[in-house]
């Protein structure tokens, strides 16, 4: 089966790598969009450093708010294991992606065995505005028997602000429903935890939420659990932080990594024609980049045919399916090894990118 193409022409893998390396070497401002496992991400960073390129995750636009939580706000975070075993009060905040609902339901069916009391109390702090329930959050809330906390017409940002003010006994214009129940539960709880996702229309509400957790910690232990929208993407973010000190949207303009979420926004760079070559790496699927202004691109994707418009296409393996991999798991709050479910001899992203870097003239 063919795994490499130059244009629509089938070529050997080594020829495709040589051709891609030539394009990269002659580029003034190459940019990389990637979606890969830990090893793939490390190889992308090494290539970007050697090239003086910038990189972003393919889902960079969705990740920005989640990353901002850590780069601009900070907070107090715990692990899913701590929540399961120790949290006697769980407050769900806003919408949580459907991928995490099973995890949350598993807490509801298990006792908090390290807490003084077995029973766990549930609340759901949410916006009170007509909006479609895309994530099934209302259903989840009913299943865990969460008490709703909201205020007439309030956005999530307003609801979090109200909660923080009212818990500090400061005046507000309106009041949250069921606040007395929450105050009583908080007074009795040994370890309240606020569970939230970073993908919100109101990123500033996350800063307010972390302020609330900090307020509670003045009197007792409390924490929050961050559940990312996309585990694999979050794993790539953590890998980047570990490797360079910075999350994606990092460039190497002078050899050293520089994090700038606007300057190295790859979509913007392509739209404004700052980049002149796009390396697109998608180990999870065959998605190809939206063509922007005829800027040439090299595609490393899961495919069986050349990507239309790509100068070079190389078929790559899917981590966890074609080969063993290491990925992030929200269920355990860290990385885990994953066995290949259908091993194949498709080339891994990490190997291809490493060969690309080696084929570059020094």
């Amino acid at each position, binding site marked *: 089966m063919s795994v490499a193409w130059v244009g629509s022409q089938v070529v050997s893998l080594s020829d495709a790598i040589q051709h891609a390396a030539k394009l990269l070497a002659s*580029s*003034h*401002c*190459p940019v990389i969009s990637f979606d890969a496992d830990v090893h793939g991400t490390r190889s992308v960073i090494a290539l970007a450093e050697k*090239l*003086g*390129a910038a990189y972003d995750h393919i889902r960079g636009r969705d990740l920005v708010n989640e990353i*901002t939580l850590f*780069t*601009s706000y900070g907070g107090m975070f715990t692990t899913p294991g701590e929540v399961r075993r120790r949290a006697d009060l769980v407050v769900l905040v806003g919408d949580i992606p459907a991928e995490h609902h099973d995890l949350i339901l598993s807490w509801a069916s298990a006792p908090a065995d390290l807490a003084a009391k077995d029973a766990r109390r549930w609340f759901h702090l949410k916006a009170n505005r007509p909006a479609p329930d895309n994530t099934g959050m209302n259903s989840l809330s009913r299943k865990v028997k969460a008490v709703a906390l909201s*205020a007439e017409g*309030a956005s999530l*940002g*307003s609801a*979090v*602000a*109200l909660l*923080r*003010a009212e818990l*500090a006994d*400061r*005046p*507000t*214009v*309106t009041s949250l429903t069921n606040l007395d129940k929450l105050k009583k539960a908080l007074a009795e709880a040994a370890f309240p935890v606020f569970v939230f996702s970073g993908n919100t229309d109101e990123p*500033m509400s996350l*800063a*307010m939420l972390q*302020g609330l957790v900090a307020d509670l910690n003045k009197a007792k232990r409390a924490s929050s659990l961050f559940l990312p929208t996309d585990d694999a993407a979050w794993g790539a973010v953590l890998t980047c932080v570990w490797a360079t000190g910075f999350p994606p949207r990092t*460039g190497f*303009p*002078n050899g050293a990594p520089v*994090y700038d*979420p*606007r*300057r190295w926004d790859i979509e913007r760079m392509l739209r404004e024609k*700052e980049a002149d070559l796009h390396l697109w790496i998608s180990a999870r699927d065959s998605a190809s980049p939206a063509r922007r202004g005829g800027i040439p691109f090299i595609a490393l994707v899961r495919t069986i045919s050349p990507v239309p418009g790509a100068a070079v296409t190389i078929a790559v393996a899917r981590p966890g399916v074609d080969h063993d991999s290491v990925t992030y798991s929200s269920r355990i709050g860290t990385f885990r090894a994953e066995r290949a479910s259908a091993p194949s001899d498709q080339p891994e992203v990490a190997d291809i990118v490493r060969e690309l870097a080696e084929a570059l003239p020094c």
Partner: protein
Amino acid sequence: MKGLTFTLRAEPEERLDLSALTPDRLDGMSVAEIAKLRVGISRRPALVGDIFRITGKDVSQIAFDGGSSRFDGIGTGMSGGTLYVSGDVGAQAGRKMTGGTIVIEGSCGIHAGSGMIGGKLEIHGHAGDYLGGPLAGEMLGMEGGVLVVRGRAGHYAGDRMRRGVIAILKGCGDYAGSRMIAGSIAVKGRVGAMPGYMMKRGSLLFDRRPETLSPTFIDCGRVDIAFSGLFDRYLIEEGILDKPLLGRKPGKYGGDTAVLGKGEILFRLGR
């Protein structure tokens, strides 16, 4: 002696980091040395001489004849002198400046006046998001100086501001004055949602009642205070406005009670 002038030869093909072209950093350098400074950020970065024709000698008066949204870091860390740009600039104009004056005839990108400590930055066009705000990982926004935007500003204007004055003359986006610690932000024109969210202290001064506030701002009614008149006079005397912004007895909201709650939103009544 004629001021140092950088005349743009053509629209740059890459983003430029112009933080090195300030009076402080160019002091004592010859034109030939300046021309060899690296300003591009691509793999084959452009030099000053590739992008600009350089004339004049007085580094205390720098002018850019022609602008571009790819001019990043104009006037970074400037402590004195004047810097004038006849067109647009990119991100982080006037970042961390401590003195002197920057005038930009066009519009600015994101983070104009970020972490500014002193001096004056005047933008005749529009400004992007996070006007005066901190970069990722920084704890403080604007710490002093005067920042005037004669057009419209984006979201999060004055985020984490600690001291100084921001005046915006054609409205701004959402979350103006978010996480403010102190200082004053005056806005003429429409203000977006949630101004003052998480502000601890400081003053937001509007020419109309804000449309969407967090419920943690309390209506304090009409107030008769000397500050509104004093600030109106300041804005007119400095040539920032030609008419009073607040009037004699403005309306007031106090907040944000979710945090310290010692901030205020003053606004002109009757609009």
